[in-house]
Each structure stands twice: as C-alpha cells, then as structure tokens.
C-alpha cells in the first residue's frame, strides 16, 4: 500500500465536495476540502498537499486561474474535474497546467486510479543520468537541469521526458505515451499528450516554437532527438 497521500479538493458544490471527500478518504487518502478558489489557494499554501483535485466551475476565480496561479510557483500534480470531455474546458485546463482530467459524474474508483497514477509519476527510479546538449536528466535524483539550472517540471512533464529519453531517437505514438505516462487504457485523450508536450517544450527547448529536442513526427507522435 502506498503511503497515505494528502489531497486538496476544491469544489464549490457542497454535496459533491462532501461526497468526494468521503469517497476519497475511504480510498485511503487524507483529504482537505475548500469551497472556493480563494479558499483553495489559501489552504494550498498553508497545508502543502501532494495533489489537487480541482473543479473548473468555481465562483470567484475559476479553476483555470487557480491552476495557473499554483503553476507559477509549484509543480505538484493537478487533476481537473470538468463538465464535458470534448469541451474547450479540457483544452484550456490542460494549457493552464493540469496533469489530467476527469469528467463529472466521476466514479470514485476512476478518480482514485487517476490520482495514484499521477502520484506514481514522481517516484524515483534507480538508474543513471543522461544528457541531451545542455539538458541533463538525473533519473536517480529525479531532477532535470538545463545549462546547470534546475528546471521546475511537474511529475507528468518529468515522466513524459523520462519516457521519451528512455528511447532516444525513437518515435512514440500519443497512445503509447498515454499508456506509459498517464497509465490510461487504450482510449486516452491525445490532447493530454499534446498539451503536456507544449508545456515541456516551453521549459526545455531553447526556442519552444522551433523545437530541436522534442520533435513532432507527423502521423506518429513525438520523439526525443539525441544531441547532434
């Protein structure tokens, strides 16, 4: 059994909040709950949770804004609770830095599986480090440095980089990456991969709009190019 994780649930509807709090507690998590974005940000700073489950539709500052504010300083995993799977919500949410999303009404088992999958991404591995130009990936310390500077990567971004760097020069399809990084079944949402690749490029590439490390392979997916 994994150690008890500490979750922060930000959800404005009382019944949903209480219900999810009950269910997640029952799944073995420690849960703190907030009813608004402001409360959530305050609780986040006070209690430093391991992961945030964030509703998109919030009174006051909405879920996207909460997500963006947290990402300015912290890289902890964020899972969005959205209303529709094919909505613009998902795209905006992923762009504002969320690691994964679930669609309401969500079964607690599904949410729990996603939470555990996201948390596993940050687990250390016992292997060496590798370097790609100025980019150094230290697998044992789970750190990435670029030109000697520590990069702040979310666990998902880190895991994506690790999976790509495990097979340098080899293209991985979006669906493969979804299974490796997100641990989704075959029917994952490829937008997750695209959004995460965009964020990762913004952090590791010299010119994010002209990537040299993480290349798009048309019709296939992405690959990490070894340094020339």
């Amino acid at each position: 059994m994994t150690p008890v994780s500490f979750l922060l649930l930000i959800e404005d509807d009382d019944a949903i909040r209480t219900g999810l709090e009950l269910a997640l507690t029952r799944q073995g998590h420690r849960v703190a709950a907030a009813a608004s974005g402001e409360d959530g940000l305050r609780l986040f700073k006070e209690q430093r949770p391991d992961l945030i489950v964030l509703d998109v539709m919030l009174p006051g500052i909405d879920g996207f804004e909460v997500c963006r504010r947290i990402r300015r300083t912290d890289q902890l995993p964020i899972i969005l609770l959205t209303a529709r799977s094919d909505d613009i919500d998902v795209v905006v949410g992923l762009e504002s830095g969320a690691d994964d999303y679930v669609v309401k009404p969500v079964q607690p088992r599904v949410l729990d599986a996603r939470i555990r999958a996201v948390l596993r991404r940050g687990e250390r591995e016992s292997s060496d480090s590798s370097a790609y130009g100025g980019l150094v990936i230290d697998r044992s310390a789970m750190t990435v440095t670029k030109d000697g500077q520590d990069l702040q990567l979310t666990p998902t971004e880190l895991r994506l980089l690790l999976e790509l760097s495990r097979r340098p020069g080899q293209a991985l399809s979006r669906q493969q990456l979804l299974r490796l990084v997100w641990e989704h079944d075959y029917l994952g949402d490829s937008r997750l991969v695209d959004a995460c690749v965009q964020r990762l490029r913004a952090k590791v590439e010299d010119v994010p709009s002209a990537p040299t490390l993480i290349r798009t392979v048309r019709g296939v997916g992405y690959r990490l190019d070894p340094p020339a």
Partner: protein
Amino acid sequence: MTDQQTAPRRARSASWRRLSSLRVRLIAVFAAVALVTAVSASGIAYWLNRDAVLKRAQNSALNDFRDSLTRNVGQLPLQPSCQDLKSLASQVASSGLAYDVVVVDDSVPECTASSDPAMFTARQIPAALAAAVNGPRETGPGNPYEYHLYWQRVNLAGPYLVGGTKVVPTGPTAYVFKSLQNERADLNTLGVSLAVATLLALVGSALLAQAASATVLRPVRRLGDAARRLGEGELDTRLDVEGNDELAELARTFNRTAESLSEQVAELSAREAQSRRFVADMSHELRTPLTAMTAVTDILEDEADALDPMIEPAVRIVVSETRRLSNLVENLMEVTRFDAGTAKLVADEVDMADLIMSCIDGRAWYDAVELDAPRGILAVVDPRRLDVVLANLIGNALKHGGSPVKVKVRQDDEAHTVVVSVSDGGPGIPEDVLPHVFDRFYKADKGRARSEGSGLGLSIAEANARIHGGDITAANNPDGAGAVFTLTLPLTQPPAPGPEEAR
C-alpha cells in the same frame, strides 16, 4: 391503373407540354396572323395590279391598231390582191407600237398577209376569236355597228394579246398580235417582291413573338428559379418587382409568401433551439446532484453486505439506479451535443484491432465475443468515440442476440474505408423494427416499459459514426439467424481536426 400503363402516357404528355409551351404557342399564333394578313394583302395587290397593267397595255395596243387600221384601210381596193393585203398588214403594223398584223380575206384564202410571216399566220388565230369577229351582231339602238373589235389573250411562245376585227363588213379581217412579255415580266417581278415581303412579314412576326414571349417568359422563368431556390431552403430569396402588371403582382405575392415562410421557419427553428437548449441545460443541471450521488455509491455498495437485510436491497437499488441515471444523463448530454453540432472529434491514428480489443477487454466481454481482426489496419478516429460505438454495438448484440457475437474487421482499399461488422446468433430484428433501430428511445416491444439500456445507445453510435464521416447499417443475416450491424468508417478524416501541430 398500373405504373407500366401510366409511364408512356406521362412521356407523351411531357412532349405535348413541350410543344404547347407558351413560347411555341405565341410564335405559332403570330406567324398565322402574319401569314394570313400578308398573303391576302399581297394577293389583292397582285390581282389589282395585274388587271390594271394588262388593261392599260391592251387598251393602248387595240386603240392604236384600230386607229392605224382606220387610217390605212382607205387605200385598199375593193377586190384586194394578196399583195394589197400584205402591204396593208405591214402599214398597219408600222404604227410605232410593237405589234404585228395579219390580214385574212376569204376571197384569197391561200394568201398569208402578215407583217411578220415567219412568226404570225392565220393559223395562229384562235377559232373562237375568229368566230366572234366574223359573226355579225344585230344592230339596234344600243349597238350601232354590226362588227366589233374582239380580243383574246393566248399563249404563243409567250403571252400574246390577239385582237381582230372586220376591216369592212364584206372585206378582209385584220388581226393584231401584241406581245405581253414585258407586262408578264413586270408582274412576275411584282409577285416575287410580294412573296419576299410576305416572307419578311413572317420572319418579323416570329421575331416579334419571340420578343413578346421573352418579356412574358423572362419574369416567369425568374419566378420559377426563385421558387425552386425557395424550395431548396434559400429562404431569403426575393424577386425584384418592376412595374404594375400581373407578373409584378405575382412577384409581389411570391415575395410576401417567401417572407412569411421564412418567418415561420425562423420561429420554428428558434423554438427547436430553445427546446434543445432546455434539454442541454436540464441534463447539465442534473449532473451536479448525480456527481454527488455517484461519489457515494461506491461507499454504499461496499457497505451493502454489512447492512440490515431489509435495507440492503434498498441500498442496492439506489446504487444501481444512480448508475443508470448517470448513464442516461451522460447519453442525453451526448445527444444534445450532436443536435447542437458541438460534438468534436479528437482524432488520433489507431490500430483498429487494438481498439476493439481494448473495448472488449475493458468490459470483460472477452469470452463472449469472437474477434476476427487483422492487425495493422490503421484509421484516424476519435478512440473514445469509437469505443462508445463499438461498446454499443457489441453490448447490443450480447443483450438482444446472445453469443456467439462475431466482430469482423476488414479494410476496403477501394473505398478507402474500414468496415466493422458485428453479428449475433439471436433471433434477428423484425422487419418492421429494422428502420427504427437507430431511433431514440425506440422500444421494439411496447409492453416493455423498462429496458436495461438508455434507449439512446444505437442513436449515439450512429451519430458518432456520422461525425467520423462514416455510417452504421442494421440488417438481418441473410443466411440464417441473427442481426448484423455494419460500421463503415473512412480510414482518414477529411477535415483532419487531429492533434497535428503547426510543426
């Protein structure tokens, strides 16, 4: 009446309609009027002219002949010889007008006294004329002379006027031959001119009819075009109204009709949009309580075994019905998304075999489904939407048909599609139900109020196939029992709204 009988009749009536079109009828009427008018006018003109020309020519010739005869007859002896007669003929003929003279005397019958013996002799004198000339008439108060000048028109190598009279009551008879060739030529020229004029009138009338029909038919055709466009759904079609005639009034009526039609359509679609929005809003609103309920159903389910036997079934009902309700609301929202056109494809290239395998695995159907899917058929699809389609088709086959459910995948290179067929071993679909299987909430058995499905599954599956540019068809297996649902999808998405990035 059977169709076979009506078909040729319809063809005949179509060709008759073409013949009796307004344009053809107008031209025919104009041409007929022009023809009658021109022909009668030309005919009258021709006959009047002919009469006048001939009368003038023959009057002048006969008067001249008479004067010349009167002048010269005095020199003739009482018993003229052939030579006398010949010189008389020559002298009379030399009066200036171009005619020839033949003098006949019964006392010298073999004598040919002619001004041009090669051309004209006594033999060419018509018998009827000779009889009239030689026959004396009774004299009386109205007729002082016994002998008169008679004439006749004959054809002797050309039209000729032949006139004759007794020179003296007991003496020789003189005949005049005057050629009417010039008059005939004049009349022929006139006839040709009149014919040409008639022809011109006909052509003119046809052009006029064409112009007249165009002024009528152009607005009619515009009206027809506008009506067709209106029928095709271009409700903003209007006509420019010019003038105040009947056609303008018709155009005005058309515009008013189109106006009220488009108003009604707008009102109807506004009402429809309103009701769609209502369903969308409603299902959205239902979701909040459902999310809370779903969140705690797992807890209830886990604890159900430990509950009082009286309460446990109640808890199980709450749990199962919450899931059903949740499923129903989810499907309802999906349907409203399709209706509103907001459903989007998140396409990715996937291996169809993998996709179907994961669909079957994820629902623990592996033992109940026979899968015949070669690996390597790659299609650009929305994996989650396709999973919904497959789950609905296979689930439906398992529920209504029963095992063995066979899923077969093949690639159609010609049509550039992938074809997935799902067949079952059940009783098949009744023929009267077949057209309705994709209808929403359609229940094959009306008595069965409750069904396990939401009643939207196949409808959503079809909509999902359509949004991919594909289709689903339902049929019964031709060789034996069971229903076959066939899903056809293009291998690539034409609009390619996939996750391809700018670079």
